């Protein structure tokens, strides 16, 4: 369970345990004594419930409930009574729902960054407080939480969301309120393209970057006849468009299927793929869909006939497939095994201590987002968003934050972080249980990203 605000006071925990224990005891007694009654519980007659035909009476429930609620409501006020005013950073991510795994990874990375920065003195001498909110993969909720963080909790910065649609909706709010906003993990192009904004910066790659980084490798290694398995929404379309551009320019041919999100069975699409007989199957699916489609691809024996590859195949997803499906050529936006690069091993060890597994790119996104904010604020000695945004344009990450061979920076024209794209091959674990990917061809961010004009971003600075 990811503890968000603060740990419960011990007293509260004891009281809750006591009440729950009482409830369970009467429940147990009730089940033993209860006899099957007539099935005629007319819904009007709900009074029968408190008359004992159910093991726990309504009164006990109300009492326990009120006690628990009283403790719940007292806790926020206990927090506020401490110390100097912290600098608040709001993080909105889908902690429940289909992206829960990667979202929670981001939170872990962000919290670790907060710890480190607070040990080093915080922002402008004040400690950082990270307020994490769940967007539940729903735009309304994400927007609501963003407003709450800005209006009620008075955060100075906002980080989020993994879901690009929510990220863009949040950006509307943060632009309106003039709050610096770092998109940690949403990939679609418009965030640093047609919908870019002076206060929005992005850590993870755009879909164009990912596709462009690996396309030529796939062409060289396997050939120019591709078949796309593309999820039918903006992310999928833009990745495919990124690939298509380069494939067409190299004179290649392609076919493809637009697959609805959440499809459980990919056989029809794979049947078509086999009929097309490509050299590579480009699997653009994400999350659970990617896991299912790869499993089925391998089960059909298609891996013996064609290669498979694509843009993202995140470590969290590789962990979810059996060994047989750990194949193909993909891009990692950050990878934990970089021998010879300083500071990476420490970060990896720290993540391993917290999560039990190697550090993932998502951990790194959360880490970089918070570190960026702290570094720029401490450098400019201000919390003013426009000033910080100006300073961030072109800002280079120091090695202990970049955790990669080059020094990535936030490009001035579109606010995209030009980090290295690690192109490589997935395989079953070798040595370390998380060593399921080998970097074969790291590509510099600038090379993969194309020009600022191509992204369609025109930043308008406030007066």
């Amino acid at each position: 369970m990811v503890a968000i605000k603060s740990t419960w006071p011990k007293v509260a925990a004891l009281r809750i345990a006591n009440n729950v224990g009482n409830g369970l005891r009467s429940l147990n007694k009730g089940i033993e004594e209860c006899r099957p009654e007539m099935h005629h519980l007319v819904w009007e007659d709900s009074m029968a419930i408190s008359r004992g035909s159910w093991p726990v009476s309504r009164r006990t429930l109300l009492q326990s409930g009120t006690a628990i609620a009283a403790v719940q409501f007292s806790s926020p006020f206990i927090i506020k009574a401490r110390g100097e005013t912290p600098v608040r950073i709001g993080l909105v991510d889908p902690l429940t729902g289909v992206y829960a795994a990667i979202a929670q990874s981001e939170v872990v990375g962000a919290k670790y960054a907060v710890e480190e920065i607070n040990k080093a003195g915080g922002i402008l001498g004040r400690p950082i407080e990270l307020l994490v909110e769940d967007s539940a993969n729903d735009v309304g909720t994400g927007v609501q939480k963003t407003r709450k963080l800005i209006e009620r909790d008075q955060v100075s910065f906002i980080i989020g969301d993994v879901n690009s649609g929510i990220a863009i909706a949040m950006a509307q709010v943060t632009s309106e309120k003039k709050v610096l906003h770092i998109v940690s993990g949403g990939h679609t192009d418009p965030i640093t393209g047609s919908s870019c904004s002076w206060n929005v910066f992005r850590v993870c790659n755009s879909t164009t970057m990912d596709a462009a980084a690996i396309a030529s490798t796939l062409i060289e290694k396997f050939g120019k006849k591709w078949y796309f398995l593309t999820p039918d929404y903006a992310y999928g379309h833009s990745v495919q468009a990124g690939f298509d551009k380069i494939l067409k320019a190299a004179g290649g041919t392609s076919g493809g299927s637009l697959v609805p999100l959440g499809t459980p069975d990919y056989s029809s699409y794979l049947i078509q793929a086999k009929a097309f007989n490509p050299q590579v199957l480009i699997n653009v699916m994400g999350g659970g869909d990617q896991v299912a489609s790869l499993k089925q691809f391998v089960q059909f024996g298609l891996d013996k006939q064609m290669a498979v590859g694509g843009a993202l195949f995140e470590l969290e997803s590789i962990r979810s497939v059996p060994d047989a499906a750990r194949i193909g050529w993909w891009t990692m936006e950050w990878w934990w095994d970089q021998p010879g690069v300083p500071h990476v091993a420490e970060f990896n060890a720290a993540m391993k201590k917290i999560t039990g597994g190697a550090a993932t790119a998502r951990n790194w996104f959360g880490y970089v987002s918070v570190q960026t904010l702290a570094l720029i604020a401490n450098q400019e000695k201000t919390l003013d968003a426009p000033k910080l945004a100006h300073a961030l344009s072109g800002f280079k990450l120091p090695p202990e934050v970049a955790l990669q061979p080059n020094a990535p920076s936030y490009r001035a024209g579109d606010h995209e972080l030009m980090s290295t794209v690690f192109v490589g091959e997935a395989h079953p674990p070798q040595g370390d249980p998380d060593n399921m990917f080998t970097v074969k061809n790291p590509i510099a961010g600038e090379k993969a990203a194309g020009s600022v004009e191509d992204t369609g971003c025109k930043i308008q600075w406030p007066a």
Partner: protein
Amino acid sequence: MTLLLLFNITNGLIVGAFYVLMALGLSLILNLSNVINFAHGGFLVIGGYIAYTITPYVGFWGALLLAPPLTAIIGLIVERILIRPLYGRDPLYSLLLTFGLAFMIEDGTRFIWGPQGKPVSIPPFLSQPLSNELFFITGYRLFMVVVAMIVVGLLFVLLRYTRLGVRIRAGTLDLETVAALGINVQMLRSLNFAVGIFLAGLSGVLAAGQLGLEPTMGTGLLMPSFIAIIVGGIGSLPGTLVGGLLIGVASGVTAVFFPAASEAVIYVMMAVILLTRPRGLFGEEGMMS
């Protein structure tokens, strides 16, 4: 093109067999107890996770044999504590309760096993396709169809020839008379619920081999089951069987010509049925008015 079509129809039947398993469980519970079990997908997920947890100890086959009954036991407990108080009440309440239960199951599985998907592998000899031509008929999918056929066969035998089965069928038609005849209706409902959840758990174990095992796995499988029941006819198990197969085929065939609509086509099918023959293909008039 015709070969492609033939492939997809065959494939659709295979996929449909899976939907049949899930829909039958849902149908059983609906017919006898008038309960729309929104938590059915949740029980599917529980079945999958239990199988994942016990596989290191009992192997794939042991998990297949043990996980569904274990899920059924959980179903029994849930029925006894949560659903029994709702019989006789407006169906709204069981709907709401199972809806809330689905939330709790999703969050509970995420809490216990973590949000990370779990890798589930199937025995190697099942991973082979039948032949290079019929590559989509993998050993595992054939296995799923065989298991589904055996289980459905057993279910129909149970309902036709055992006392419990006869009572369940009688109860579906007229529960009051069955109670008046002195039969313990409480136990009947509990056992019926347990059988339904057994089927859900079994679906979960089978699904884990094909899809990713994660807490949100069950939500996308619930709606097709509903549709299978409506298309086949509420109150008719053979109807649900046909409905499930039809859904699989329709979805598979549409994916060839119009992939974007392959999910939506089953809803269109349902709409057509409701407009032309509201009781469903095999439903009886007045079953659910």
